[in-house]
């Protein structure tokens, strides 16, 4: 499953999300929407949100760092 994390360099919830993916050996792509305006637009289109983090888990959009929801979507026990 493709996992994409929309982030900014200072967002602590994004840092937590990254650690969570690493701990659970989930491959993910992180994009910095502060620098990459196309990614910001893409995030907006997918989620209606202009705040980070937004996480795309195989097409399912998670707004914020929601451990419980991510575990369910990724099938983590």
């Amino acid at each position, binding site marked *: 499953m493709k996992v994409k994390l929309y982030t900014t360099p200072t967002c602590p919830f994004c840092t937590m999300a990254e*650690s969570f993916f690493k701990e659970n050996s989930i491959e993910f792509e992180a994009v910095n929407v502060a620098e990459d305006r196309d990614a910001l637009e893409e995030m907006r289109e997918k989620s209606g949100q202009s705040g980070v983090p937004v996480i795309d888990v195989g097409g399912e959009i998670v707004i914020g760092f929601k451990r419980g929801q991510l575990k369910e979507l990724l099938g983590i026990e």
Partner: protein
Amino acid sequence: MKDIVIIGGGPAAITASIYAARQGMDLMVIAEELGGQAILSSAIENYTGFELISGAELIGKFISHAEEFGIEIKDSVRVTDVKKEGNSFSIYRSDGNSCRARAVIVASGARPRKLGIAGEEEFVGRGLAYCAICDAPIYKDKTALVVGGGNSALDAVRQLAPIAKKVYMVDVAPELGGEAVLRERILKFPNLEVFNSSELTEIQGDSDGITSVTVSNPDKNIEIKTDGVFVEIGWEASSDFVKMVKKNKKGEIIIDSDNRTDVLGLFAAGDVTSVSKKQVIVAAGAGASAALNAIDYLTRLKEK
């Protein structure tokens, strides 16, 4: 029926869960946002054993510690009501489920205070933010408005002004508060405009997000064009879902020195309580105390 249900996911709740799990309690933690407010702290320098650590990292360690015990944590779920029936409690949740427990620990901390004005709910996450450290970098070459005049509002301006085209600050007080050093520093930004003795009264926008706001002072209403609004007007106890318990004027749950509330079997710990010091280590210690006292209570209940 659980022995203990712990409501919250910050330092108080996580510590309580570790103490309760080590004593073999059958427990569940229900947390709206696991981790709590300390995640927002970029540098914690007063938690014993760590000279300097970010809130995200420290809280990450707390969560891993709790996970070692296989504690059942319901994350991304809010408790909407707590009721007592006889000797047990019913806990109602935002996912439509409910559960029962012999004892409850309320450790639901504090949440950002809201403006309570038209447009606020509508534009959350669509230009309206309560986390400047998260979203400030997105406002490069854009316009942003910060509501508030204390340290957290000053800090939001410090992050925004160097990158944004224009930053407004709207504060109800006649003069900005916060630390003098930080205040002097931000007032030097040429692209900052401050409205003292003023309030934000409405947020306007369209399907793409915020377009403008209305700023009101006793003389007039002004419309200001902005892409974003950062709300930094302080924190309040997150206690409205427990109605039966005694609280002070600030909505903080009143406890005794053993973290007991006026409802037998209902304990509380951390920033949601009437303790005057709101710190990670204080909240964690209170969580431990609440758990140990809840266990004592359950032991006596069984002996009866």
